[in-house]
């Protein structure tokens, strides 16, 4: 119960989405500035909970992923710190490191070019690599003594504002499965925008909480109540669980999110419409099956080239397919 915990935070820093979020009135949005100040309070709270608690912060910038801070000192800034008698020094280092590295990155973007999708996958995999290393070093440093080996209690928190990128379906699923193997819990805070199908699955499969933030101005409270307690304590307090989990997948041919798909029996590739040859393993499918599936298709979806749409009562989370 009293194990120190490691927290890896992945921040979605898509400027377009943050601008939309700040302009949003229903539900009321939040500016990136406010978000960061609330986030820093939360991160300080995590550090303050226990002396051995560790922290790593990753920024998912458009098109790249960067480690912004880690408590083991991988990221350091050379900014001269003004000593402030009223601030606990580790808090100050944390705050200034994160803020300066974010500012440095964001300054380099000009508003001219179209924004690339954020590097969420890179952040997730980097966080996993980092956790993997802390686990293995803890294991090797404590050979003989069992205590320290089991003492890392890692989890990942993803704060997202961007919609799903269908093209990252497979990498995200792979990250989820490796998180499962490492026994890492993935929590998701969705601050702005529609439900994120892949992150929902991530939270569900790793036993984390998926929280759709309804009042973004009270973000700090959401984070303190839902994401601060370590997984061991969550058995005692009830952390908001997911409403419904969407188990839809993205098809391989057009990267659309589908509900009813056509699956190759050899390699399990998913297609959104019957295809004569599997594009992944080059298996030819029997003509008879194709005929049968084509006949059956109008029952499942409106005729034409449109992909199967979700039924009416689910609030549609389909995203425009981006070319992968």
């Amino acid at each position, binding site marked *: 119960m009293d194990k120190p915990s490691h927290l890896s935070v992945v921040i979605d820093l898509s400027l377009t989405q943050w601008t939309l979020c700040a302009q949003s009135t229903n539900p009321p949005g939040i500016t990136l500035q406010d978000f960061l100040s609330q986030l820093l309070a939360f991160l300080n709270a995590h550090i303050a909970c226990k002396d051995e608690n560790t922290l790593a912060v990753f920024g998912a910038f458009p098109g790249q*992923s960067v*480690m912004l801070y880690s408590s083991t000192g*991988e990221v350091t800034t050379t900014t001269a710190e003004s000593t402030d008698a009223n601030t606990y020094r580790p808090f100050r280092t944390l705050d200034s490191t994160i803020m300066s590295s974010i500012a440095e990155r964001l300054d380099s973007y000009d508003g001219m070019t179209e924004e690339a999708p954020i*590097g969420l*996958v*890179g952040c997730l*995999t*980097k966080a*996993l*690599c*980092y956790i*993997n*290393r802390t686990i293995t070093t803890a294991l090797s440093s404590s050979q003989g003594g069992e205590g320290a080996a089991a003492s890392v209690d890692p989890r990942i928190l993803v704060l997202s504002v961007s919609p799903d990128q269908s093209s*990252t379906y*497979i*990498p995200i*699923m*792979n*990250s989820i499965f*490796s998180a499962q*193997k*490492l026994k890492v819990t993935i929590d998701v805070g969705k601050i702005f925008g529609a439900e994120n199908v892949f992150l929902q699955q991530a939270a*569900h*499969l790793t036993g984390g909480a998926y929280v759709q933030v309804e009042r973004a101005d009270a973000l700090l409270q959401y984070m303190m109540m839902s994401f601060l307690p370590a997984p061991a304590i969550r058995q005692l307090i009830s952390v908001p*669980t997911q*409403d*419904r*989990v*969407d*188990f*839809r*997948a993205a098809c391989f041919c057009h990267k659309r999110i*589908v*509900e*009813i*798909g*056509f*699956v*190759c*029996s*050899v*390699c*399990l*590739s*998913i*297609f959104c419409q*019957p*295809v004569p040859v*599997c594009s*992944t*393993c080059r*298996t030819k*499918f*029997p003509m*008879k*099956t*194709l005929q049968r599936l084509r006949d*059956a298709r109008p*029952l499942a979806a409106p005729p034409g080239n449109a992909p*199967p749409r979700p039924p009416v009562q689910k609030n549609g989370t389909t995203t425009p397919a981006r070319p992968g």
Partner: protein
Amino acid sequence: MAPPAGRRVGDDFVDDSDSDVSITGLDDETSRAKAKGKGKAIDRNKKDKGKAKAKEQPYAWEASYSRSWDTVQEDERGRLEGAVQDWIARGRRRRLLAPAAAIRRTIIRHLVLVLDLSSAMLDRDMRPTRFDLMLQYAREFITEWFDQNPLGQIGVVGMRGGLGERIGEMSGNPQDVLKAISERHKLEPTGEPSLQNAIEMARASMSHLPTHSSREITIIFGSLTTCDPGNIHDTLDECLKDRIRISIVALAAEMKICRDLCAKTGGVFGVALNEGHFKDLLFELIPPPAQRAVARPGAQGANLAADLMIMGFPMRLPDTSPPSLCVCHSQMKSEGFLCPRCLAKVCDVPTDCDICGLMIVSSPHLARSYHHLFPVKPYAAVMSLEETPDPSKRCHGCSVAFRDTPATMLGAAGEGMSPLGRYRCPECQNDFCTECDVFVHDVVHCCPGCGK
């Protein structure tokens, strides 16, 4: 320094058997490569050993020494670092050589694992006892099986006291199955086993399954007798009719009825010679059987193996949703999965929708096997930094700092090891440390740099 080939386990066994006591005084020609007793048990080595044993040692008691220290060697300064690195390098090689071809799978497998819990399992011819070893291997088997058969389901049945005993219900969740056999004291072996009762029970639990799934029974059988209420050949005929495939791993000796059960249903029969061979036999049953299409006459023949299947990905309802009747058991339940085509509520996936017949699977089940399709390209070892104008100081994955000066290698340069500890992705040109290289290729299957 690679270990001398002759030091493999099972070779010159008698000669080496007492040398671990006096080996420090032994003046070898290759004095650097003194093998000293440093136990470092490594799973893969064990497995190799098991195979070697199976080939070369007919008796279990001859294989009781686990000589794992032979594979670890110290360097000049008496440290194990070099040996460990060497071992990692060999792991890398093995991975690169692994075949990349797509594997044909039976998509949905159903298996009943029948465990012998008769008093014959208390025999100590396998260590610590047949029973403990069986439980241990069964656990590993289940984990591995679910890894390779993401859509499969396993049920567990025990045989003791002349009865078949349901230990675990058919489930697609490895944790459920492992939990069923986790409590050793509930499975304490007693009495006689009954093959017929156990097979009948397994058959009954698979009778309702849809036709596209495979039905299999795997029996771990330690006894030389079976105590049946009726004619077991009738059961065999019933299994044939239901297209159930029976495989048996016997721990004692071959029995005619076991051989018949396997041969007639298209399964595999094997008698374990020792611990390692037992594991090998059991783990051979993990990959989906290759001759399924041939074994099933009628239908469409050759094309049966490859087909396009229509599948639905459901929506899961939370525990807090208003209760409604499920279509499979007609019970009032809150949680469940909604069929995407007809919106009927079913209790568990994977299954066939009872209303519209759509096969409902959850997409994570499918996604689990995708890394076979899109493997990460092997990283190239960086030999020197001369060609890179601006080398990164830290690993792109875990941000650990790279060492500046090349380390002295222990003759492993040819095995794809980088003296700088840097491995570069051919796609995104980012550098990774050894730790991350192994982790990315073995676990994550996704490069942190390029996201592919």
